[in-house]
């Protein structure tokens, strides 16, 4: 599917540009460079306007992400249950800093601010899998499982 054909169905919809960007990202895993120009054209906006929207939201990524994205909650309820130590342990385990993607592009580690799992913290999301009462081993196991599923 071309970028234009992904984006076009959202013209005229409420908040269409944001939904269109979500759709592009779902298809490509990030927003390819042309997204800005194509979306501007399709929505009849300036490139600056589209760029302004893309840069405003945490969800929108302008560079390819790792095949598996591990999002670790960095907010208060998770801090109260060892979240800071969990982040340190994951950075060590995956030899990655928060916000970075591995050179082989297999993994991205990034913070997220609350997953609504604050009563069973700390929490994380591996791909689209939620993990509560998380620790580095548990997250590692889910990462392995996710990788295996993709391979098969």
């Amino acid at each position, binding site marked *: 599917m071309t970028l234009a054909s992904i984006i076009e169905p959202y013209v005229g919809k409420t908040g269409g540009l944001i939904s269109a960007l979500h759709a592009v990202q779902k298809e490509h895993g990030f927003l390819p460079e042309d997204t800005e120009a194509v979306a501007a054209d399709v929505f009849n906006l300036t490139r600056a306007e589209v760029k302004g929207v893309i840069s405003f939201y945490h969800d929108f990524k302008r560079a390819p992400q790792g095949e598996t994205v591990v999002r670790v909650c960095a907010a*208060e309820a998770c801090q109260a249950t060892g979240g800071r130590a969990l982040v340190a342990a994951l950075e060590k385990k995956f030899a990655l800093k928060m916000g970075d993607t591995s050179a082989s592009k297999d993994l991205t580690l990034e913070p997220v*601010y609350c997953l*609504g799992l604050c*009563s069973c913290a700390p929490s994380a999301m591996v791909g689209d899998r939620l993990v509560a009462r998380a620790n580095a081993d548990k997250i590692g196991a889910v990462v392995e499982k996710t990788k295996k599923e993709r391979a098969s």
Partner: protein
Amino acid sequence: MTALTLYLPLDSAAVALGADELADALVREADKRKLDLKIVRTGSRGMHWLEPLVEVEKDGKRIGYGPVDEGDTASLLDAVMGDGKHEKSVGAVEEIPFFKNQTRLIFGRCGVIDPLSVEDYEKHGGNAGLDKALKMDSAAICEEVFESGLRGRGGAGFPAGIKWRTVAGAEADQKYIVVNADEGDSGTFADRMIMEGDPFILIEGMTIAGVAVGATEGYIYLRSEYPVAARVLNDAIADARKAGLLGENVRGSGKAFDIEVFIGAGAYICGEETSLLNSLEGKRGEVRSKPPLPALEGLFGKPTLVHNVISLCSVPAILEKGAKFYRDYGMGKSTGTMPFQIAGNVKHGGLYETAFGLKLRELVEDIGGGTLNGRPVRAVQIGGPLGAYLSPRLFDLEMDYETMAANGAGVGHGGIVIYDDSVNLLEQARYAFEFCVEESCGKCTPCRVGSVRGVEIMDRIKEGVEHGKNVDVLEDLCELMVDGSLCAMGGMTPIPVQSAVKHFPEDFGIKPAKQAAE
């Protein structure tokens, strides 16, 4: 084949603790036994330390087992098919004190019914409020809400009835209902739980609001971190259309109302209502200056009723049972019930719906059971990242809007995050600034730049660099942010900071002189 029905939550918290894998394992085990197993995926009861909580109906009561893991499947099926005894049995779920002592005006069905069954919803009292509303004129509905004393549950606590009157009174060719389901506050998950566990109550509340103020279109602005809620809501809306609850002719009343779900893109500030409206228009989520009020010029410049999920979910009971019934719960100007969310380092974390007026101590110690690891509670933060840090010295305060405000705190969206004695409040205060750096919309300087300065100052205080001077600078900075910020993001970031300094001065290297005088 013998048949068996089990109830197991589809709620994100249960799923994050293994509910989906458990469901698969139960089906495999049942197949082995040639057992005709039906698993009804419900919402969560809110006792998250028991999740995944499996329930089975026996003699008209739901008996629970939890937390159940995949390894328990064989013994669990033995138990429920036999005498019911199992080491993970928790007995009748509704007899557990945590559950039994609640007043569930909103969450009554959550965890009980199949969230995607209109039939279940109505069998358990659903749509009674809507049916009453459809027989009333719009002014009378607004008055009922006004008389109930309901205040917005999103954080600000503004009287709902006043907003309803304003939107109802505005002349326009189009008006909107917008649900704020951005639920960005850490320590909160009530919106998520009700959307996942009883979506029709939100649809009912929105429809009543639409009828009352004359809006035919509703949007649910849902944060992207809630994929389960997105799925449930979209399915529920489709079912509601089929059942004639939404569409051109709601329940045969001749009135039109329909709903769409919009997924946000990861920005805490988009929980602020004017930022949310910009985002819903597909723009950057920058905060708008008020006035104009969204009630008069909101989405696409049209009169818009913006409400938090829980505010709207409170409405069906108000219409069904009347304003007086609702107002009789709570204390003073804090009427009705609030789903408190007990989170962080806590033994019995989860959702506890009760009338306003409970003491903080009851929530933290009696209901929450203290910390998970058994260490002493040292601090709680109430009302999300912009909420105050309080020490146990203040645990006798009542949880209602006025008492909290009088003590420099706020109920917010009802989240309580508990910390043990290993917490360092300077770190927490620094984080409050960091979060503001990360999430500021950038429109005004005190917030955008002040938060960056705040982080630097915290580091200097921590390192003892010109300590006294930096403590003073911190105070000035906080004052500047309070006075000069356009919205509460910058305006309230000083609350966690200054409450931390006030109640835990020792963590900032400040002699607790004031404390002694208190």
